[in-house]
């Protein structure tokens, strides 16, 4: 195995897992919040929020990466503030995670939003009459009932994060051990004649990982659905 992939490739695999995991996990609470707001609230600027969330999907990834660089870079308006707090994203794996999270965010929000919309408001009403405040209604009824969609959305986001390339390399470059994820490594291999073999090996690794995640999400989804039953 260790022969099959060189240490640099293994490093890329480990980094990709780390980046995707944290990108997904850290954006989940915000994803759920935004999805809920879009599904259940109406407020001025809702369509604008909706649009912003979807931007990374619409724009070529390079553009997104460039926008991230301009805003979150150490000299950027947001990045400089973060830097004052000691949070540096540039050229760090954390920045790669941010890029991956931003790119995966629309997918996560879409999936979660759809499943929140599918929760019967009558059950939420029942919960409210039983004394649950909106936040408790959300935690005890909406959230668990939307769980299959949340799992689906999370895994989808994870898969997307594993595959993200354009925004990542533009925002945080390609530094072995910090920001060289599997897709960056694949891209580098594909640029030179004869690099295909190494690229294929990495493709296989990322397919295996993502498929595993998908299978897991299907299993969780099915178990949750079975629990909720035909009710």
């Amino acid at each position: 195995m260790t022969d099959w992939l060189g240490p640099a490739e293994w490093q890329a695999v480990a980094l990709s897992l780390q980046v995707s995991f944290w990108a997904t996990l850290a954006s989940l609470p915000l994803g759920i919040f935004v999805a809920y707001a879009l599904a259940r609230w109406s407020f001025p600027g809702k369509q604008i929020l909706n649009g912003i969330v979807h931007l990374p999907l619409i724009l070529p990834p390079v553009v997104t990466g460039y926008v991230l660089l301009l805003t979150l870079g150490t000299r950027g308006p947001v990045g400089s503030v973060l830097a004052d707090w000691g949070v540096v994203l540039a050229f760090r794996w954390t920045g790669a995670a941010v890029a991956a999270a931003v790119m995966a965010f629309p997918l996560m929000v879409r999936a979660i939003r759809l499943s929140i919309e599918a929760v019967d408001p009558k059950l939420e009403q029942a919960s409210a009459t039983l004394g649950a405040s909106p936040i408790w209604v959300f935690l005890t009824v909406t959230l668990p009932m939307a769980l299959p969609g949340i799992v689906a959305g999370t895994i989808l986001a994870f898969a997307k994060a594993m595959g993200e390339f354009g925004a990542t390399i533009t925002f945080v470059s390609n530094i072995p051990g910090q920001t060289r994820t599997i897709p960056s490594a694949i891209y580098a291999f594909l640029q030179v004649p004869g690099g295909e073999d190494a690229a294929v090996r990495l493709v296989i690794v990322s397919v295996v990982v993502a498929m595993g995640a998908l299978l897991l999400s299907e299993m969780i989804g099915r178990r949750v659905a079975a629990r909720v039953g035909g009710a």
Partner: protein
Amino acid sequence: DEITVFAAASMTNAMSELEMQFEAATGHDLVVSLAGSSALARQIQQGAPADIFISANPDWMDRLEQDGLVAADTRFDLSNNAIVLVAAGTDAAAVTVGPDMDLAGLLGDGRLAMALVESVPAGIYGKASLESLGLWDSVAPQVAQTDNVRAALAFVAVGEAPYGIVYATDAVAEDSVTVVGTFPPDTHPPIVYPAAAMAESDNPLNQSFLDFLRGAEARAAFERQGFVVVAD
């Protein structure tokens, strides 16, 4: 009539000037597909309807030649370029690029932005220069690689990286960076853009376009974009 040229994306500006000139001069249609040299080469391998290929990377042209996809005796090196060291800001101090350059010292704990040093031409040339100057090992851990030169330039332009190595043609148009030095041409393989007609193309315009590329009008156009045209 129409002729299809697959050209490296870094030629974008030059190609659009050439397109106008060629069409005006001959009345024929010039269709230019701009992408990474590797993508274009692979497409040609898969039967893309390219009449002419202009690569930023001699390796890919070599590969196509090995595959028998390049029309015999049509390949030539089109234009020349230089790689330069750029620094963030408009008033950075010039440095002398040579074996004595304290690049690591200049960088401090900052990054050196480059195109991918193993696979993108500008990165390959930059790494070769640094190696021949004996500087590579001292700066290697600090290199931030990007998928193309423009992205490397962007890192310097926004101040994310204090220095970067890019093509001279890229550096001139960017106001927020300063070219602080040029790598001597003998420190890296010649930076050439090989052009050739494709073996599978039977377009009668091929030869006239290749001739046009070598002509004075085209040369002027390349020079306007900062290229140095290779002398035959």
